[in-house]
């Protein structure tokens, strides 16, 4: 047995040379929860943050986020009272900041559903530490996203008639079910609802835990109502587990359908840069890529601030980094395919568009997108980088930035120069655009920070289920 630590040995504390069944090394992975925790410790470590006063760090973060959220509300108010022209929207770029941010935030949400549904079906047990915060992220990202299509109508109080099949006095003049924009309404609202349901179903047993820990009668009452009367009997658990499987099975095709349908908004049109059949898988992969980037950003901060290093270990972060690397490859392949198909198609508009993307007036946006999404994630090939938290954190910030610019490039660069040079134009960010973009991040973060304070950030019962009962059980008093 050699004493030197080999690179592949990191993260596998039990290592035996020639101990494997075929003579190779036998490696046992680190347990999901480290630090010799017991089941009772899980409750204490996770739920305690909802039971004490917030720290100064939390207040600082919250005040900044809340200030930015107010900027968001200000931007929306100015857009409603003055008109959508307060943003840089014009002819030919009619879909500016609203659709960029809508697609960005919807994409962010996809990682949460992927972690809670698809990784559940694949029995990836490491998801248990991060699924709660990822699902919360999904819910808040979808909430943030939904603001944009609603508000970009300019008259949101009429939007219900334009978006939903509501009987009305105009004929009745119904909505057009042939339109991808309408599919989008159904897809996103279904996605939002199912995400909330999935998230809340996962929360119910953990809220019951907080209820049982509560001392103050009002607190007990509130969490008692929120827990819906969950008691943890097996005659309940058996339905619970089946229903969770059903929801995971439903959410898996749903999450793939949502960004597929979002991509139809673009792909069904005839604008160069939009009119491609590769869009659905390319958008879904991009959504998962950006979502995992955001999950990593949030969990790296969260595990530090709430001292959850034993639950969200470096192995968890490394697994997520591997997903980021994989999806970066899928996205990168799609990027290159677009160029090749544009060249190979021989269509002048397509060829012009893709050279315009790299060397036109918005060349910087294109290069930021390709650098952040294709080049920088290649660093994750190195195990040392995947396991280095500061470097990983910086990479995830680049991923977030790059994916925002991907949507910027798709919306703005495609629209600003189409087939007719006489109708070319430019799109410049105005104050309202900045307010809506930066403000939406503040709105999202405010919701997430409130979530961290009032609800358990880790799915306690699922984490407990994957701990070794021989070590985690309460010791019997003799």
């Amino acid at each position: 047995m050699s004493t030197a630590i080999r690179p592949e040995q990191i993260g596998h504390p039990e290592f035996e040379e020639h101990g494997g069944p075929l003579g190779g090394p036998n490696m046992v992975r680190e347990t999901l929860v480290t630090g010799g925790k017991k089941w009772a410790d899980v409750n204490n470590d996770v739920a305690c943050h909802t039971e004490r006063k917030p720290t100064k760090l939390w207040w600082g973060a919250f005040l900044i986020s809340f200030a930015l959220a107010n900027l968001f509300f200000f931007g929306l108010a100015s857009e409603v009272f003055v008109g959508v022209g307060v943003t840089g929207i014009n002819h030919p770029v009619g879909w500016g900041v609203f659709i960029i941010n809508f697609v960005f935030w919807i994409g962010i949400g996809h990682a949460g559903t992927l972690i809670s549904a698809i990784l559940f079906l694949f029995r990836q047990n490491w998801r248990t530490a991060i699924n709660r915060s990822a699902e919360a992220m999904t819910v808040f990202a979808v909430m943030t996203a939904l603001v944009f299509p609603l508000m970009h109508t300019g008259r949101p109080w009429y939007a219900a008639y334009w978006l939903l099949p509501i009987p009305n006095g105009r004929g009745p003049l119904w909505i057009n079910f042939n339109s991808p924009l309408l599919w989008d309404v159904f897809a996103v609202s279904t996605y939002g609802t199912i995400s909330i349901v999935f998230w809340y179903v996962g929360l119910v047993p953990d809220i019951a835990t907080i209820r049982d820990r509560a001392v103050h009668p009002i607190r007990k009452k509130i969490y008692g109502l929120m827990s819906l009367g969950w008691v943890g009997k097996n005659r309940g658990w058996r339905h619970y587990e089946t229903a969770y499987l059903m929801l995971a099975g439903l959410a898996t095709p749903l999450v793939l359908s949502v960004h597929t349908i979002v991509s139809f908004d673009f792909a069904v049109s005839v604008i160069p840069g939009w009119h491609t059949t590769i869009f659905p898988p390319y958008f879904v992969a991009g959504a998962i890529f950006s979502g995992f980037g955001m999950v990593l950003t949030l969990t790296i901060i969260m595990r530090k601030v709430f001292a959850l290093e034993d639950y969200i270990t470096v192995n968890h972060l490394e697994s997520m980094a591997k997903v980021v690397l994989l999806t970066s490859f899928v996205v990168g392949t799609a990027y290159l395919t677009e160029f090749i198909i544009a060249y190979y198609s021989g269509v002048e508009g397509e060829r012009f568009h893709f050279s315009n993307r790299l060397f036109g007036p918005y060349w910087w946006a294109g290069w930021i997108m390709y650098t952040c999404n294709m080049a920088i994630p290649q660093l994750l090939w190195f195990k040392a980088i995947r396991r280095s938290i500061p470097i990983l954190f910086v990479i995830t910030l680049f991923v977030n930035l790059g994916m925002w610019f991907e949507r910027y490039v798709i919306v703005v660069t495609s629209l600003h120069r189409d087939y007719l040079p006489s109708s070319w134009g430019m799109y410049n960010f105005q104050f309202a655009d900045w307010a809506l973009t930066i403000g939406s991040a503040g709105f999202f973060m405010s919701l997430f920070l409130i979530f961290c304070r009032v609800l358990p950030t880790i799915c306690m019962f699922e984490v407990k289920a994957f701990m070794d009962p021989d070590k985690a059980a309460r010791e019997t008093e003799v």
Partner: protein
Amino acid sequence: MSEDKSKKTESKADDSEDASNETSEASLSKASSSSSDQSSEFNEGIAEKVEDVVEDIVDDVKDKVEDVKEKVEDLVEDVKESLDDAKHTAESAISEVFGDEHEIRLQEDGEVKGIAAYFNHPDHLMYAAEQTRDSDYEKFDAYSPFPVHGMDEAMGLERSWIPWVTFAAGSTGFATAFGLQFGIMGFDWPMVFGGRPFIAWPSFVPILFELTVLFAGVTTAFVMLAAAGCFRKPFIIDKDITNDQFVLWISADDESFDIEDVITFMRKLNPHKIRAVREGHK
């Protein structure tokens, strides 16, 4: 119950003590009266001798009675002590089951809802559930902080019927979307979009899928929660069930429920605690 019993046995012991004293004194007085009748007919010398003899006998008898009395008293002490011991054992057994405030609890502050046996390890609970499944008790349940795999078989439960709900709700959603789109686009207000037919069914597929998922998901979640006993005031057996305790529960609603029998049954399962839970307990 057992306290009353012990009191009764105590009083019985007192009675028997009194009775033994009475009988010994009665026999003594009988002996002395018969000797005085004889002394009136015979001469005084003989009478004195007889009296002496009788006195000796009386003294002997008295000594012996004293001895017997002492022995009886000792015995009574012993009985009392052993009774006290028995009482303590009974009390501790009761307090183990009913909690520290058993005396107040025994004076009825709510009916017993059921009896809970506490375990620390999920496998131990699984064993207990298997034993209960094979017993006469029908209304029992296994409480755990997280779902324990294999517990359904251990409790003898069949597969959950939730998938049927999902299927039914999904079909309803599909039918709704079908009716909505075909009805509106085909019959209520047919319009031509881009030269396509009125009913361009491929463009209805996304909403058919979305509404199927929406109906199925939301209904599954609500029906599951209702089936799991939510949406009503919970009866929380112990606050540690959501922490790290595993509890086997036999409900008082069970037809063959009898507190002592259930406790005896549960003792065989070797839990670290057995507790009778009353309505409104804290």
